[in-house]
């Protein structure tokens, strides 16, 4: 389905910034496509701004009950190998990652 773009609401530079924030490496074609997609979607969503919500509280939660608080008790046993069972890379009982440079 082809669509008409009336205006460009999101730039390629912004797409790069957002991709960096989300730690997603995008190929140039992906970048171009996503810029178009997001632009198209956001344009459709622009109609939300037409609604007057000055005095409307944002939905904090839909529930009708208060915060759940638990007692301060230790119930978890010392972990065996399960924490590391799915680790892509490990060194003994540590998770291993490429060196972190401050």
């Amino acid at each position, binding site marked *: 389905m082809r669509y008409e773009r009336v205006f460009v609401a999101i730039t390629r530079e912004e797409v790069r910034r957002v991709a960096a924030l989300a730690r997603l490496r995008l190929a140039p074609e992906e970048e171009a496509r996503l810029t178009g997609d997001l632009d198209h979607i956001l344009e459709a969503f622009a109609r939300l701004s037409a609604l007057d919500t000055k005095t409307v509280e944002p939905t904090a939660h839909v529930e009708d009950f208060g915060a759940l608080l638990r007692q301060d008790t230790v119930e978890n046993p010392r972990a065996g190998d399960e*924490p590391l069972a799915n680790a892509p890379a490990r060194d003994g009982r*540590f998770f291993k*990652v490429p060196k972190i440079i401050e």
Partner: protein
Amino acid sequence: MSAVETVIGLEVHAELLTRSKIFCRCSAAFGGPANTNVCPVCLGMPGVLPVLNRRVVEFAIRAGLATDCTIARSSRFARKNYFYPDLPKGYQISMYETPICTGGRLDVLVDGGTKRIGLTRIHMEEDTGKNIHDAHGDASLVDFNRSGVPLLEIVSEPDMRTVAEAGAYLRMLRSILMYLEICDGNMEEGSFRCDANVSVRPAGQAAFGTKVEIKNMNSFRAVEKAITYEVQRQTEALSSGERIVQETRLWDAEREETRSMRRKEYADDYRYFPEPDLLPLVVDAGWVDEIRATLPELPAARRDRFIRDHGLSPYDADVLTQRKDVADYFEAGVAAGAPPKEMANWVMTELLRIVREEKLDRALVVRDWPLMATQLARLALLVQAGTINRNTAKSLIPRLRGTGRDPEELVTAEGLAQVSDRAAIERAVAEVVARHPAQAAEFRAGKDRVLGFLVGQVMKASGGKANPQLVQELLREALGG
């Protein structure tokens, strides 16, 4: 160079002494082999959810009440989103727009007066895991034992104007948290962390200068040195017309300087939004009142009472009330009969010296004092009464340690009582003067200092037991000075 004013704000992260972590039932205790004190929740596994530990909220309210904050009736957790290996979910559950406490203050003693420093906010959040460099240096290793340990973040207003004020604020805040028994205040081990925000401005200017954040200060001394260095750096920059960059700098304890962190291509945007997995926290007045009733006498109040009731100097009272266990110890000694000024002296010089040397103060409460309070009190009384001299008393401390022995009983048993018999000392003095004619002559000639040597000789001759004041008095008499 025209006058420059320093503006300092401090941000403290305090690890809380709860039994379990903030959002899961793992132990919050330090230590253990890597990744054993973890569960799916604090590892950020797929599908897990946080459940808030009631005691963390209680501790936050305690801290807020002790610093005169307003406790929010309703507050909300928020997600702080960023990527780092020690942050398992890729976001930290913290608080943003609605912290649990706001608008408090601390009154600190500094430069002979009192300064009020405002407290902007206190909120709860979870700690991250720990990254360490591996032995070969080409990888980093991550341990999540600490992930999910509860933290209180305490943010001050930028009200401090000198390093001394910053130090006094930090010490007072730490004392309060320790009195409340919510944090053990250990900077070296990382359960009490401090970041500083430092800026300078020309004296008289209303607007704040560019603020620089300083991190990685691991002791009180480091905080003082780092702020001093940074103030110097910024002042120099200001006077040479250089622009100060708003950034985060790390304190390098070895080189004793602050340095820029590596610049990132895109600045981190934390994209805070209300945590949808936790409902708003509602704190009713009843609970706050219950908690208020359990607050202990706080350091400032106790310090003032020590000045009033025990006649101590503000400085001494301040030192003795920095830790609650020390203050309790002091008062136990006074209750056992020791005169306050003597007890204060003994605690501050002898007791605390040993406590610091042996790092007994790393715990929230010192577990084994070198001496019981009653024993130290007894020693103080014996010295004050002239029964033994100070040196003898000092030498008895290691001998009494670990025993419940009454010092007076030990003194009697070993005949350690100091000799205050005038006649005996006169004889010893005469002997020493006769044996050291040269020094005697020097003293008579005006060299006052040599008296110390002669006093030492008399003390030696008496096996250390002579009353030193009496020895001095009689020596001067004998030497005709």
